[in-house]
């Protein structure tokens, strides 16, 4: 078991593909098909392009506050690739590439950050909960989804996410504890991107690793190089298989870095040095994965360049569609509060329509 081999209390970290694109643990290299590897890589590139463009759109005043995921694509896609069709994703708010990989249309994701609730209305068959902004709450939701799966023998596993800062919230602990008590089929992923807005990871907890928090709940925990997509895949796969066998939850710490600002409203120069960022740019998950794919003969620089160009156009097109939606109708403000609109809402709605007619 990897979680034994890479004991978080001994500060062990699972890495398979190092930052130069070399395989450093041959025996652990996953046997993934060319198709799957390319799907993973392409999703990471799309995540990167869409993320970069969203920041540009925001700067142009066309997009609202956007949560930036640059640098965390391997943690997000490596984990997502390890679950099956029938499984669930319960996100926090920074899992852009996970959601893409799991079939959330870019149109939806953009629409959400564009300030439209319809962005969270994913197409049929996409088993993703809406983005959760209130840190920690999603851990209990994930546990609940997993328990429902277990009780109804649905064979579904749940993948859920939180940030390093989120490990300080009560619900982080409550969710894991609850899941462990009932052996819920859930995999908890901490994306340790080293900052909670301005607060560095070491000011968040005295624990040397975040993975070691698993031990107190009696479940396995492992720290993984979160910029190594293969390691993320392998660690998550082991956890997912365990969960599916009915052996309960696992906690995975993806050791990564937020290369961009916290959101488009944040100014990271207030709290971190460019030098530190530069060090992590060298560990960019896309660079090493591309090298690996080229080395395997699955990919080339030419194809890579073409892919970026293609995605650039694609992202522009999608954003244009999103922009074309503009503001939504008044009815939407009232219609989804309950299955049926109660009298007081009907009255408020009618009175407001009457007002609009009168002032116009």
């Amino acid at each position, binding site marked *: 078991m990897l979680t034994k081999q890479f004991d978080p209390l001994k500060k062990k970290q699972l890495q398979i593909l190092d930052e130069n694109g070399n395989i450093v643990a041959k025996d652990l290299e996953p046997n993934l098909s060319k198709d799957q590897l390319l799907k993973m890589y392409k999703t990471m590139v799309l995540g990167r392009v869409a993320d970069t463009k969203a920041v540009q759109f925001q700067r142009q005043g066309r997009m*609202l*506050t956007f949560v930036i995921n640059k640098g965390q694509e391997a943690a997000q896609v490596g984990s997502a690739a390890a679950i099956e069709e029938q499984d669930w994703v319960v996100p926090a708010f920074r899992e852009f590439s996970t959601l893409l990989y799991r079939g959330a249309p870019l149109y939806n994701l953009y629409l959400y950050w*564009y*300030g*439209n*609730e319809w962005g969270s209305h994913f197409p049929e068959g996409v088993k993703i909960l809406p*983005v959760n*902004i*209130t*840190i*920690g709450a999603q851990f209990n939701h994930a546990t609940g989804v997993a328990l429902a799966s277990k009780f109804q023998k649905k064979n579904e596993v749940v993948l859920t996410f939180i940030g390093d*800062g*989120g490990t*300080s*919230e*009560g*619900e982080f602990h409550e969710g894991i504890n609850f899941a462990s008590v009932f052996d819920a089929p859930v995999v908890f992923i901490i994306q340790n991107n080293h900052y*909670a*807005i*301005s*607060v560095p990871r070491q*000011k*968040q*907890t005295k624990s040397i690793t975040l993975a070691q928090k698993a031990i107190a709940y009696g479940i396995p925990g492992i720290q993984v190089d979160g910029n190594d997509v293969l390691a993320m895949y392998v660690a998550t796969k082991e956890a997912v298989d365990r969960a599916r066998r009915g052996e309960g939850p696992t906690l995975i710490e993806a050791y990564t870095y937020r290369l961009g600002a916290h959101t488009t*409203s*944040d100014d990271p120069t*207030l*709290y971190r040095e460019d030098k530190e960022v530069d060090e992590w740019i060298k560990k960019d998950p896309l660079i090493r994965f591309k090298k690996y794919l080229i080395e395997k003969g699955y990919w080339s620089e030419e194809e890579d360049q073409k892919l970026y160009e293609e995605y650039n156009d694609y992202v522009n097109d999608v954003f244009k569609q999103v922009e074309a*939606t*503009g*503001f*939504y109708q*008044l009815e*939407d*403000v*009232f219609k989804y*509060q309950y299955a049926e609109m109660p009298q*007081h*809402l009907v009255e*408020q*709605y009618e009175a*407001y329509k009457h*007002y609009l007619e*009168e*002032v116009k």
Partner: protein
Amino acid sequence: MALMTILQAINHTLDQQMEKDSTVVVYGEDVGVEGGVFRATAGLQKKYGVERCFDAPVSEAGIVGTAVGMAINGLKPVVEIQFSGFMFPAYNQIAAHVARMRVRSRGKYHLPLVIRMPYGGGIRALEHHSESQETLFAHIPGLKVVIPSTPYDAKGLLTAAIKDPDPVIFMEPKRIYRAFKQEVPEEEYIVPIGKAKVVKEGTDITVVAWGAMVREVQKAMQELEQEGISVELIDLRTIKPIDKDTILESVQKTGRFLVVHEAVTSFGPGAELVSLVTQGAFLSLEAPPTRLGAFDVTVPLDKGEHHYLIDSKRIAYEVRKLIKY
């Protein structure tokens, strides 16, 4: 005297109180090194050190719960909840402990603490960044709830809150954090908690508002004045305890009453005020005392928020209806 925004007045007041009173401690998420996501605490850690101004872990229950302990043991915590939408993990502490320590211990312990938080809509924000939850605090016995609408009052009320022997929820209208500047005296002064302010005297109708809505009412008044409607505007400033006398005196004079708030309508602060006016000024009323609050819905995200926000036009419309009643 210096010209300040509401945000600057808050920063200046925290600085002044920390300087004058070494028991004042300031903390919350991103409050220390960065000086808060809105910069309300900028510079304080540098000036007073990490034991008086610091970054808390992402833990609202922890922030408020530790403030209870600190307040019992000799400090005056002034804690920040980053956005009022994130106070819910702390709500257990607030409702079950902050509000009750004095009564529970029959006065042996009391909590001189302040919980600051930006609130309110109109800033095109993500979910949970636009709500107005004053009722959720005002409904709890044992809490005081304060909302300034000007830089001058922000300083005076925050100073009063810090000096208050009981816990104060200090809600800051973030939409107007930087909207305008006002002369703020350098020296310490107090705007008493529990005292509303007659912003402008008028004869036809009393309008009560607070926070960002005060300015919307003022805009409406420009329109209404041209139509010959004279509004008496009261800035409530303290949601709890309500300044009953100022309101009743005004309504007894004008005979009409409208309360305008950003919070959702049902079971909201407007209901409390309308009840107070109905009982206290019944014989003076020439129209039903009325509330104008937000629809009873979850605050829409940006692409629907314009439907939801109350603006000066709606206020003017409601006032006209009551005048014509």
